[in-house]
C-alpha cells in the first residue's frame, strides 16, 4: 500500500498507456511524462511566485498581495490573465525574428533540463549515463537566449544588461560545474539516478546525504551561490537590476513574452534547485530512515520548495552586488575554493573510513575559508580619497 503510494504516478502512467495499442505505448509513455512535467512545474511556478510575494512582504513588515483570493491565493491567476491580455509591443527597429525566438528558446531549453531529474523512485524521464553533462549542456544554452533577447531589442541598455548577464552566467558556470564534479568523483558516475542511490543509505538512521560531509557542505554552499548567480537572482540580479536598467535585457518585452521570461527564470530556479537537491540533499530519499514510508516524490518536491524558500529569504535580505564585485567574487574566491574542494574530496576518498578524514577535511576547508575571507577583505587597493574642487 505504501509502496503503491510511492509509485502512484508510475502506476498511473502504466494504466493510461495500457489503454492504448501496443505499438503506440513507448511514444505515449514519453508524451505523457512530458505533459505531466509541463503541467506540474508551471503550477509550482505559480505557487513560488505567490510565496515570493507574500514571503518578501512579510520579511519587509508588510502584507503581500491579499486582495485577489483569500490571502491572495488567486494572485498568480490575475497575473496570468494580465500578461495574456497586455498588448504585445515590438519596437519598430527591433529584430522581429530573434525578438520572438528568444523567450521561446529560453522556455524550451529550461524545460529540457527536467528530463534527467529523478523526481521520485523510478520517476526519471530519461535514464542517461551522462545525465549531469546533459543538464549542464542545456543550462549553458540559456545564456544564448539571454543574449538574443538583449541584442534584438535594439536598446543600448538592454544590450548592456544582456552582456552583464552573460558575463555573470559564464563566470559562475565554472564553480557550478566544479562543485558538482566533487559529487561525481565520490559517486563514480555522471548518472543522477546512481548519485541518488548512493545517498539513499542510512547509518544509525541518518542518511548519507553529501551535504552532511565537509566537502559536500562546502560544495553545496558554492553550488548554491553559483546557482543563484546562474539564474540571475538577488543578490546577483544586476542584469535585471530593477532599479537601474528598468528590466535589463527584457525591457522591451511586454505581455506574454515577458511572462515567458519570467516563467523561464523561475522554472530554471526550480530546475537547478532540483539538481542541487539531487546532488547534495539526497534527491528523493527521506531525511531519517524511519520516515521511509513517506512517498519519495513528496521528499523531492518539499526539498525543492525549501530551496525556493531559501532563495526568497536571500532575496529579501541581501543587497545587490555590483558587477565587478560579482566577478571578483566568482573568480577570486569561489573558484579557488571549488578547486580546493576537489582536492579535499580526493583526500576524503583516499583516507578511508574513520574520524580522521572528518577532522582533516573540515580543518582544511575552514582554514582556507577563513584565510581567503581575511585576504579578500583588505581594502589596500583603494588609495586615499582625492578631492577635486571647482575653481
Amino acid at each position, binding site marked *: 500500500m505504501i509502496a503503491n503510494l510511492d509509485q502512484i504516478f508510475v502506476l498511473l502512467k502504466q494504466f493510461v498507456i495500457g489503454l492504448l495499442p501496443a505499438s503506440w505505448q513507448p511514444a505515449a509513455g514519453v508524451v505523457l511524462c512530458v505533459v505531466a512535467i509541463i503541467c506540474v512545474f508551471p503550477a509550482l511556478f505559480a505557487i513560488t511566485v505567490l510565496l515570493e510575494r507574500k514571503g518578501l512582504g512579510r520579511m519587509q513588515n508588510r502584507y503581500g498581495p491579499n486582495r485577489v483570493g483569500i490571502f491572495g491565493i488567486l494572485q498568480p491567476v490575475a497575473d496570468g490573465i494580465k500578461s495574456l491580455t497586455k498588448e504585445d509591443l515590438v519596437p519598430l527597429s527591433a529584430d522581429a525574428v530573434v525578438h520572438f525566438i528568444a523567450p521561446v528558446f529560453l522556455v524550451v531549453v529550461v524545460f529540457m533540463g527536467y528530463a534527467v531529474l529523478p523526481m521520485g523512485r523510478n520517476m526519471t524521464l530519461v535514464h542517461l549515463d*551522462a545525465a549531469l553533462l546533459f543538464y549542464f549542456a542545456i543550462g549553458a544554452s540559456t545564456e544564448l537566449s539571454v543574449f538574443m533577447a538583449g541584442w534584438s531589442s535594439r536598446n543600448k541598455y538592454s544590450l548592456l544588461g544582456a552582456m552583464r548577464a552573460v558575463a555573470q552566467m559564464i563566470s559562475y558556470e565554472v564553480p557550478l560545474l566544479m562543485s558538482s564534479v566533487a559529487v561525481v568523483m565520490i559517486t563514480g558516475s555522471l548518472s543522477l539516478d546512481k548519485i541518488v542511490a548512493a545517498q539513499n543509505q542510512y547509518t544509525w538512521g541518518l542518511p548519507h546525504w553529501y551535504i552532511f560531509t565537509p566537502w559536500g557542505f562546502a560544495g553545496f554552499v558554492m553550488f548554491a551561490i553559483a546557482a543563484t548567480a546562474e539564474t540571475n537572482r538577488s543578490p546577483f540580479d544586476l542584469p535585471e537590476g530593477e532599479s537601474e536598467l528598468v528590466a535589463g535585457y527584457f525591457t522591451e518585452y511586454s505581455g506574454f513574452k515577458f511572462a515567458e521570461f519570467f516563467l523561464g527564470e523561475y522554472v530554471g530556479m526550480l530546475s537547478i534547485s532540483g539538481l542541487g537537491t539531487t546532488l547534495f540533499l539526497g534527491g528523493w530519499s527521506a531525511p531519517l530512515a524511519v520516515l521511509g514510508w513517506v512517498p519519495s516524490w513528496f521528499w523531492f518536491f518539499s526539498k525543492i520548495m525549501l530551496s525556493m524558500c531559501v532563495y526568497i529569504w536571500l532575496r529579501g535580505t541581501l543587497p545587490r552586488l555590483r558587477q565587478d564585485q560579482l566577478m571578483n567574487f566568482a573568480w577570486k574566491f569561489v573558484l579557488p575554493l571549488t578547486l580546493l574542494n576537489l582536492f579535499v574530496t580526493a583526500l576524503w576518498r583516499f583516507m578511508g573510513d574513520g574520524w580522521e578524514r572528518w577532522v582533516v577535511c573540515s580543518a582544511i576547508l575552514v582554514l582556507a575559508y577563513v584565510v581567503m575571507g581575511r585576504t579578500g577583505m583588505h581594502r589596500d587597493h583603494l588609495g586615499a580619497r582625492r578631492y577635486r574642487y571647482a575653481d
Partner: protein
Amino acid sequence: MEMIFYGLAALTLAGGLAAVLLKNTVHCALALTVAFAGLAFQFLELDAQFAGFAQILVYVGAVAILVVFAILLTRGSETPMDGVFSRTWLAGLAIAAAVFAVLSWAVLGSTRALPGPGGAPAATPTATVMQIGNALMGRYVLPLEIVALLLTAALIGAVIVAMHEKAGSL
C-alpha cells in the same frame, strides 16, 4: 533512421550556409550556433553521448557566446557596406577544398566507419564517459597535458594583453 540523418544534415548545412550568406553578422553567429547544434544532435544520434553533450556545452554554450561577444565588441554588428562576398573568395575556396580533402582521406582511410563486406557497419564500441576518462588519464595523458598547457598559455596571454591595454590607457 536515415530520415533523421538527412534532416539533421540539412539543418547543419543550412546553418553553415546561412552563416556565410546572411548580411547581419549577429544573425550569422546565430546561424553558426544552429550548425553547431545540428552537429551535436548527429553525435547524439550516433550514440556518442559524451561527444554530443560536450559539443553543446562547449560550442553552443561557450564558443557561440564568444563569437557573439567578439562581434559586438568590435564594430561587426553594422551591416557591411560592400556585400557579403569578399574579393579573395578563390583562395578561400581552395583552402576549404584542401581541408575537405584531408578530412575525407582520414575518414575513408578509417576502415571502421564504412560498411564491411557484409553490408552492415562493423560494431562500433560504445564510448562511455568512464572509458573516455580512463583513456584520457591512461593512454592519452600526454596530449591532455599538452592541451592543458596550451590553454594555460592562452589564458596568461589574454591576461597580459588585457593588462597592457589597461596600463596603456591610464
